[in-house]
Structures are given as C-alpha cells and as structure tokens.
C-alpha cells in the first residue's frame, strides 16, 4: 500500500489530448493490391542507404536491396518479388524533405501475408538463445515503435534484467499497438519470451495505458490461463501524452531516471514495441524477415478509419485505393502520430510517398495553416514541458544563435514531443527550432574536434619538414666531411706512394 502511494508521487508530466477524431476499429485489415514499392534511400533518423542492386535486377522477397552508409547494420529488404524499376531518379517525399528512392515493380500485385499463429504445443523455452539471436539478426528486425534501433544490438547490451514490452501508444487516437495486442497477443508474449531467453533477462513486463481496462483484463486473463506465459507482469502508466516514451515509462513504472546520453539498456532494461515482438516471433519460428507493419489510417472526414497491415514500402496511393478514399479529397498526409509525426512535403506525388518502417500512422486532412505571432512569454510551454526545460527562452537563445546559453545546456533532454508547440498560443514552431539548434550544436562540436585534429596534423607536418631539412643538412655535412676525409686519405696515400717510390 505504502509502496503504491509512493509510486504515485512520481508525477508524470504531460497532457491529455483529445482532438475529436474517430479512432480506428481494432480489427486489422490486410492490404491486397500493390502497384509499386517505394524505398526512400534515407530515413527519418537521417541515415542514408546505398543500394546493393542495380536497375533491371530481379529481386526476391526478403532480399537485401540497400545497406546503411554509416554502417549501423541497417538494411532495406524487398517485400515482394519483382524488378528494380528506378534508383535515384524519383524523389520520394519524406517529412520535411525529398530524398532519392528505389522503386520495385512487383511481379504479382497480390501480397501474400505469412500469418503465423502461436501454437500451444510449441515449447518456447526449447529454442536455444544463440539461434534466437542469429535469426533476429537475419530477419533485420528493427524497433517498430519509431526508434528503428536494431533489436539484435539491444540484446547484446550487458546485464539485461528486465524485458519491457511497450504497448503505451501515447499519441492521441492512434491505436495500432492496441489492435496488435487484441489480434496477436500470444505471438507478442512468445516474442517477449524469446527476447528474455536471448538476453538472459529475469522478468517480462507489459506496459499499458491506465484507461484501457478491457485490454488489461483480456491480457491478465490470457496470461493466467496459459502456463507458458505465467509470470508475465502488467504495469500501467497514466493516460497522458508523452507517457509512452522510453524514459517516461522507466521513470514512472521502474523508478529509474535516465540522462539524455543513456539508453534503457545501460540500466538493464530492454524495451521493445509489441509489434516488434510479433516480428521476432515470426523470425524465430518460421525464418520470416521483418517486412510488414501494422498502422492506423484516420483523419478528418474519414468515415471508416482502419488499422491496416501492409508491407513496408507500400505507397500512400495504394493505401487510399484499398480504403476506397478519393485521393482528390485528401489535402494533407501526415506520417506518424498526430503529435510527433510530420507532414509530407506538399505538392509531392502520392505515388512515391511510401509507408516507412517507423510510421505508425497515416493521418489525412488534418493540416491547418496557422498564423504565427510573436512570443509573449506566457510560460505555457514551460508548464507543459515534460522534461522541465524552458522552451520560450531556449527558442530565443537559438534564434540568436547563442548555443552556449545556459538555457540550451540541457537541449539534448528534449525529445521532440511537440507539447510546447501544442500549447503555444502564438503557434510558434518551437520544436523545429530545437531540431535546428541540436544540429547546429552538434556541427559546432564536430567542427571544433576536426579543427583540433587538422591542427595536430599541420603541426606534425611542420615538425616533419623541419626534421627533414635538418636531416638533409646533416647528411650534406656528413657527405662533405666524408669527401674531405677521402680527399685527405687520397693525398696521404699519394704522399705515401710518393715516399715509397722515392
């Protein structure tokens, strides 16, 4: 009792956001017709990819078609058999920018879903942990919560004790995680157990939102009735945005605070999105690569919002066609959640805007052009900030390019949750400025590091040339001396020979 009370004392800061849009139904529909698959060669995390195939190549389902340039082990896999149509020619719209893309023309329009379901007779503990790890690497499994971290890397983290399955979809309206839990609960839990075995962890905890009572009952019932899943814990977080962020969950549920430089794995936690667990389950039991994801489609004036499962790379045009939504009536497309997602650049072709691995939602018709006015220092953003920053002052410091300001000292704590933008009465894009400031700060640091490095090289060269000169002179003098010696010896010899002859 006392523990519970103490736990409640840790305040989770945040807001309840109710935008008044219709939420999608919890059934998951499967997309059928696919005209083309588009893979942007850059992702939301600013990684760039280099294609490993060339135009006209035939690719098979699950084949690697591009690898990350910065060598994080990230790959892009083809989701269908087909032919590479173009590379680099077409620009695919991503949030905020347009990037070159790789387009696959599938041989067969129909997409075959490998729906693998959990079989009670399978003993999960019998899978050896080396095999699980290998298969996770092979299947190129990335966190589908949005972070796109490689699951295999997370497992390698030292001393992992707790597996946390994150089903807190704190973005308003979005409910694809909930849908996954209703439809694939056994698979999620099995994936969790695989993770636990692979990382040699002790506990598994599913974290949910407080207000989803039905789902909580459903899960606890299921866990009780299945022997294999006994011992899986349930935890809840308040129905606030952004309580689903990794740090917020650890703070609220596990009473662990992370600094900006730390990851959950540094504290012995391995957090995975529930959808990733399904991918892991499929990869381990049936060798299936991670090709699909579940996402919500909703928006203003959309009568039947749906949760869809589709291969990554499917175009927005195909999605709209499948849902029988008139493409002409759609003004804006937002990829991601209502709060943290971003609009794709206006006026770009919908044929080439693709479903990304990190996009948990496609939101239509919600763009509003708002008049921006001067910051009146009202302090709403200061009250709203979940990590206790001072957004209004930070904005002013960044505006003046004063990156050494004390307000920007903790900039890296900002997790782009957009709450300050949400409450701002002047409609200022504070987070956009913080993204700029973060990049600038990093660039300045890099510049300084490089300057130091280059300076070091230059000093070395100066020393080297000096040394070379000295050496040259020394050798010259040595040679001179040697020549003189030789001359003297010659003379001596001549004298000697003269003397002897004489």
């Amino acid at each position, binding site marked *: 009792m006392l523990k519970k009370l103490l736990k409640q004392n840790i305040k989770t800061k945040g807001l309840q*956001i109710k*935008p008044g849009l219709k939420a999608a139904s919890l059934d998951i529909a499967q997309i059928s017709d696919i005209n083309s698959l588009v893979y942007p060669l850059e992702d939301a995390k600013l990684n760039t990819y280099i294609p490993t195939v060339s135009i006209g190549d035939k690719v098979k389902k699950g084949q690697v078609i591009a690898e990350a340039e910065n060598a994080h082990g990230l790959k892009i896999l083809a989701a269908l058999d087909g032919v590479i149509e173009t590379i680099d020619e077409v620009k695919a719209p991503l*949030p*905020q920018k347009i990037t070159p893309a790789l387009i696959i023309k599938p041989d067969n329009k129909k997409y075959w879903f490998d729906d693998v379901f959990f079989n009670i007779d399978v003993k999960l503990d019998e899978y050896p942990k080396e095999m699980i790890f290998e298969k996770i690497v092979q299947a190129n499994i990335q966190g589908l919560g949005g972070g796109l971290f490689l699951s295999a890397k997370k497992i390698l983290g030292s001393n992992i004790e707790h597996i946390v399955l994150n089903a807190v979809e704190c973005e*308003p309206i979005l409910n694809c995680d909930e849908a996954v839990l209703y439809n694939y609960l056994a698979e999620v839990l099995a994936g969790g157990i695989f993770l636990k075995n692979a990382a040699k962890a002790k506990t598994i905890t599913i974290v949910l939102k407080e207000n989803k009572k039905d789902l909580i009952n459903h899960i606890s019932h299921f866990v009780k009735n299945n022997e294999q899943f006994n011992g899986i814990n349930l935890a809840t977080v308040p129905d606030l945005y952004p309580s689903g962020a990794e740090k917020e969950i650890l703070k609220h549920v596990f009473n*662990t*605070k*992370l*600094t900006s430089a*730390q990851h959950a794995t540094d*504290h012995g936690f391995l957090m995975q999105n529930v959808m990733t667990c399904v991918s892991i389950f499929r990869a381990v039991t049936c060798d299936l690569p991670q090709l699909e994801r579940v996402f919500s489609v909703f928006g203003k004036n959309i009568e039947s919002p749906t949760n869809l499962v589709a291969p990554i790379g499917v175009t927005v045009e195909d999605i709209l066609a499948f849902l029988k939504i008139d493409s002409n009536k759609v003004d*804006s497309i*937002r990829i991601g959640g*209502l*709060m*943290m997602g*971003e*609009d794709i650049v206006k006026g770009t072709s919908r044929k080439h805007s693709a479903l990304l691995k990190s996009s948990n939602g496609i*939101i239509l018709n*919600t*763009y*509003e052009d*708002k*008049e*921006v*006015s*001067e*910051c*009146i*220092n*009202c*302090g709403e953003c*200061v*009250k709203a900030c979940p*990590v*206790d*920053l*001072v957004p*209004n*002052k930070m904005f002013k410091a960044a505006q003046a390019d004063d990156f050494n300001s*004390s*307000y920007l*000292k*903790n900039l890296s*704590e900002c997790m782009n949750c*957009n709450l300050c*933008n*949400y*409450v*701002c*009465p*002047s*409609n200022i*894009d504070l*987070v*956009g400025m913080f993204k700029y400031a973060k990049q600038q700060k990093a660039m300045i640091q890099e510049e300084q590091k490089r300057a130091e490095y280059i300076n070091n090289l230059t000093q070395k060269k100066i020393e080297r040339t000096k040394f070379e000169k000295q050496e040259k002179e020394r050798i010259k003098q040595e040679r001179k001396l040697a020549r003189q010696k030789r001359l003297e010896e010659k003379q001596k010899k001549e004298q000697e020979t003269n003397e002897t002859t004489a």
Partner: protein
Amino acid sequence: MKPLLSLKNDTHKIMFEVIISLIPAILYKVYIFGWLGAFSLITLIATALITEKALSKILQIKSDLGDYSSLITAILLFLALNCNMHAFIYIMASLVAIGLGKIVYGGFAKNIFNPAMVGWCFVMISFPQYMTKHIDYNNSINFIDSLRVFFSFYNIDSLTQATPLTQYKHDQGLFDSNCMIATLNILTLIGGLYLIAKRVISYIFPLFISLGVIVALFTFDYELFAASSLFFLYGPIILAAFYIITDPVSSPSLVKSQMVYSFMIGFVSILIAKLGVFPIGVAFAVLLMNSINFILDKVFNKGVNYETK
C-alpha cells in the same frame, strides 16, 4: 513544420479576455468620474493607438493593432491614473508608455518593462502635483464644465483633495470612508478572478504580491499591518496584482522566479512608500523587478537533473 494539433487558444484571444475582464471596472470608473472619466479614457486610448501606428511606421516595425496590447496599456493607465488632470498629461502618459515603453524595444512582446508602468512613472515624476491630488468623486459636472477642466489648468485645484493614502501618510489612522475606491478595487478583483478561472493568469502573482506586502507592512509599519485588509481595499495593490505584474511579456516564466518576482514587488513597493517621498511605490517596484526578471529566470533554471543510481 508546425504540428497540426494545437490548443484553440491564441495570443489575441488571451488579450481579448483581459479586456473583457476589465470592462466592469472601466464602466464604474467612467461612471464615478462622469465626463472627465470618459474624456481621459478616450484620450489615453486614442493617443496609444495613434502612437503605436505612427511610430511603428516611422521605425519600420511590424505592428498589429489587433493584438490589443496597446489598448490594454491605455486601459491600465486609465485605471491607474486619476481623472482630474489635464489632457496634456494623459497624452504624455500614453505617448511615453507606448513609445518609450514598447516601440523603442522593437514592438509588441519585445519590451523589457511594463509599458503602462513606464507611462505612469513618467507622469508621476513629471507632474507630481497632479498625481498626488485627488478629485472629489463627482459625476455631476456637466459636459461643458468638464471640457473646460480637461483642457485647462486653472480650476483643478478647487476640485481636488488628497487621496486616502496620502491623507493617511500625513494624518495616520484616519481613513476616508470613500467606498468608491473600494468598489472599483472589488470590481478589478472580480475581473482578476475571472482571468484566473479562465487560466489566462496564474494565481501565483496575486498570492505572492500580497504576501510581500503583508511581510513588508509587518516589518515596517505594524499599525498599518493591523489594518492591512483596508490597505488592500484602498490601495493600488489589487490592480497591480492581477493586471500589471501578470503581464507575461515583462514577467519571468518559471514558477519559482514568478514567486520571487511578485513577492519582491509587494515588498519593495511598501519599502518605497515608507522610505521614499511617494505615497505608494508599486509602479517603481514593478519597473525594478522587470529589469531583473531575466536574471531570476536564469537563476532558477536548473533544467533536468536526472540523478543516476
């Protein structure tokens, strides 16, 4: 790119809310001062708007009268000033408030000091003989007479007497039972409470300024402390607490610094009144604290201090 979602409040609506909450107080003040009140209000507002428009055009600053900020400044000046003065004084007050208090810093939301208080202090220092005198509340002066009073200096003295607070300063313990100021203050208080209910202003400001005033009275003037409720009722503290120190532009944005800021304003204003020549020093205290609110924010900004186990 802006997020699509945002709350449905915007800056203009907040400002509009402030004006709405002030309407009862304005109407009552116009009522008790009759034509003189109406003239001073119109002069202040007209001067403020014209100054803003003209100066921003000359200095090429983007300005929008629709943000109501200069209107609010004029209204606050009207509530803070007496209504027995010459038109010239009102024009100067408004001109200085908008010109020196706001436009020179670059326009709306860039000022350091509260513009209304800049204007008030200017006339207080320039024309103290008018500021410390008070008119007999008399709304029976007719239109022509009011006009004559408003545009000439000659018969103001015959109409004025000292304010209750000045009187108190000279003749301690004697409170004029002038309930009109009290009514005005109560109307202002109601407006302020409306703003708190609407979440336009924070309750921290009135709470801590009152605390500051009470502490200062306790240390400097115990007798007045005993009658502090009357002091609040007759003094300018209520107007300052709800409308002047809550001005978001010139106040700090962290809760802790807001507490210190408003407490210090309450304390310093009593200090000035006790040690200085002016009967009340709220405006001076506000300007003083305005100048250090950036420092306050910096002092209390510690950011996130995540402790690691």
